[in-house]
């Protein structure tokens, strides 16, 4: 039984592919999963894999040639089969390049999972294991799962369904939702007090899993974050900051303070961000559907991980507060946040947010904007790195900052200048005194 090899859609938007290199030649034996060729899609170079065991024949596309998705480019014949007799199945043109892109698989799931032709039996289809043909069919998902995925901006094609026949059901999306929320969690307080795992450890009942009802805070997180990454057009700017001088300043200040408190890198970032915001009002704003509210006051939300969630208590007028005040206030707010003792006015009304995962050795990450705010700063760890300066390699303490911006409010260059000011302040902490 011959199996036609098609130019497959190896990315969701691929309409044609350039055959970069054949890995198998005419007459080579091939097995299911072998890489037949490298194909350049509109996005990347991908492997085109064999869908049947046999011998590669009738190679009709030369290296360097570009052909449309769905065109047959070779045939895999069973051992002993006559080449000429192998009927060629019609190309799955209907599933590609037309208005049916939603049925194409995501490039992440390419391996072993590519569209195959709904060919008239007995040609081609028989050699293909039934489950792989399912890819050409619409994604199986319960209506509820579709709704949740849509609201959360999750691509169903990237999920593995645990329901019958691979149906994506609600529980398959629960993990995904958790993964998305994890990003903006950060705490300015000492690492030892972090609630490391926010998954409650239920009593062991021997059950394969445990359904834990959503707590109020988790519901709110889900709602608010889903309301962010979906509708808010995020983009991200990353810069690396030299923290040598900030670190020196911090050590000196902490020596000075002694037992009267400690200043963290996060406090310094909060302060610097607040000052930078006074110079870049465009980043200190709320998107309000029909207008943008540019704030004259600077209230910085600081993301704090709490049991089963996160919350962003607000340092009000952070631009006018000293590092010590910011440090004490952050410590107090974080402490009370973990004890669920915050008053609503203490965690609402921020004009900008800072999220820090540095204490978890995260180099850099992207945080989800806390609407209606227009931006959030994601702070990575401060770590020694080799840096080239004046032709020499030096060990310097460095830190990565990533600014998530709402493009409806902040354009690329606007965000970039803000980030530059912030970087300058951190690299020259004395500038904060100006």
């Amino acid at each position, binding site marked *: 039984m011959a199996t036609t090899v098609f130019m497959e859609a190896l990315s969701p938007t691929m309409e044609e592919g350039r055959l970069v290199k054949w890995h198998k030649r005419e007459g080579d034996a091939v097995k299911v999963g072998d890489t037949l060729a490298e194909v350049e899609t509109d996005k990347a170079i991908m492997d085109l894999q064999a869908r049947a065991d046999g011998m590669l024949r009738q190679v009709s596309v030369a290296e360097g040639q570009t052909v449309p998705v769905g065109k047959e480019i070779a045939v895999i014949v069973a051992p002993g089969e006559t080449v000429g007799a192998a009927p060629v199945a019609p190309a799955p043109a209907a599933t590609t390049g037309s208005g049916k892109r939603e049925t194409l698989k995501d490039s992440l799931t390419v391996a072993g999972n590519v569209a195959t032709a709904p060919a008239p039996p007995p040609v081609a289809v028989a050699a293909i294991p039934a489950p792989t043909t399912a890819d050409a069919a619409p994604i199986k998902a319960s209506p509820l799962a579709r*709704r949740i995925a849509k609201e959360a901006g999750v691509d169903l094609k990237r999920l593995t369904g645990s329901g019958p026949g691979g149906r994506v059901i609600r529980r398959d999306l629960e993990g995904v939702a958790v993964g998305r929320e994890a990003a903006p969690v950060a705490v300015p307080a000492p690492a030892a007090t972090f609630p490391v795992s926010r998954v409650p450890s239920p009593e062991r009942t021997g059950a394969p899993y445990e359904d834990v*009802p959503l707590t109020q805070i988790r519901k709110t997180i889900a709602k608010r974050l889903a309301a962010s990454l979906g509708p808010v057009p995020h983009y991200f700017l990353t810069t690396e900051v030299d923290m040598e001088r900030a670190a020196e300043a911090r050590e000196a200040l902490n020596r000075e303070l002694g037992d009267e408190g400690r200043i963290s890198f996060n406090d310094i970032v909060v302060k610097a961000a607040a000052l930078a915001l006074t110079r870049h009002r465009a980043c200190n704003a709320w998107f309000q559907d029909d207008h943008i509210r540019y704030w004259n006051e600077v209230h910085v939300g600081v993301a704090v991980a709490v049991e089963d969630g996160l919350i962003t208590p607000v340092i009000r007028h952070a631009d006018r507060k000293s590092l010590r005040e910011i440090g004490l206030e952050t410590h107090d707010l974080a402490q009370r946040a973990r004890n669920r003792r915050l008053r609503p006015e203490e965690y609402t009304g921020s004009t900008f947010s800072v999220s820090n995962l540095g204490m978890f050795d995260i180099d850099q990450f992207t945080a989800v904007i806390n609407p209606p705010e227009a931006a959030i700063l994601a702070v990575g760890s401060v770590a020694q790195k080799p840096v080239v300066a004046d032709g020499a390699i030096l060990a310097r303490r460095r830190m990565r900052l990533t600014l998530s911006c709402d493009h409806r409010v902040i354009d690329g260059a606007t965000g970039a200048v803000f980030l530059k000011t912030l970087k300058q302040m951190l690299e020259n902490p004395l500038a904060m005194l100006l």
Partner: protein
Amino acid sequence: MPTLTYRDALNQALREEMQRDPGVFLLGEEVGVYQGAYKVSRGLLEEFGPMRVVDTPIAELGFAGVGVGAAMAGLRPVVEFMTWNFAVLALDQIVNSAAKILYESGGQVPIPIVFRGPNGAALQLAAQHSQAWESWLAHIPGLKVVAPATPADAKGLLKAAIRDDNPVIVLEGEMLYNTKGDVPEGEHVVPIGKADVKRAGTDVTLICHSKTVVPALKAAEQLQEQGVSAEVVDLRSLRPMDEESLVASVVKTNRCVVAEEGWPHCGIGAQVVDIIQREAFDSLDAPVLRVTQADVPMPYNKQLERAAKPSAEKIVAAARRVCYLD
């Protein structure tokens, strides 16, 4: 609140309504001297006399017609069928007269009549006497159909049925007559068209009515032990049906099982599923499953009869499937 049997709750409703309104009267086989085949009319002949508690010949079509005529003349008859299996003989009066006269008279002649009696299977009464007729009756525009599961609902819905100006079918159950429950005294009227959450839950909705409320509640108990929180919604009224309550529950739980005594094809559950797929589509995490009587005439053999009927075990199994546990 006094505890009454379902049978005595119906008796109380009849007595109170007959005391309240002299136009209300009862007719049917053995309702008078014998005080009812299931003793629902106990003491009524003595209290209200033979003009208002009328023993009839064994002629369902005939006395149903007498009832319709009395209703046309302005009385409020309550027609008792010894079982709904016998009422099949009277369907022409129910479907073609009672249900249509208001319409055919251009709204001039209301038919305030109640047809009541036990419905569905009891124990080993065999194929001809073990049938659940609700989907036949609820199919007909012009009829209202209620199916109380508890003594309190039996009293409240029968009172509402007697006071309604339309023909109302009250489906009782031989296996329910002896069940006990708290029944409010006096003016207790349950509005027709309102479902009732008999047990609250979060993971799956079990929709049921009449006799299936009992296995549904039992199933919910068993599911609880397995870590599944089931909500039991008693339809109570099959026409009109309380779409709002059904949808609200399924929107909350995302999963649904419908249980009924009738056969699967074109059953009450089919109507429920229609509502849910239409009004709660985006809340469904699994196809709605139904638990019904097996699609066969009811066997006489005890074991086969048990196997053919809906049961708590079958409801548990369906609930676990819609929760993707099996």
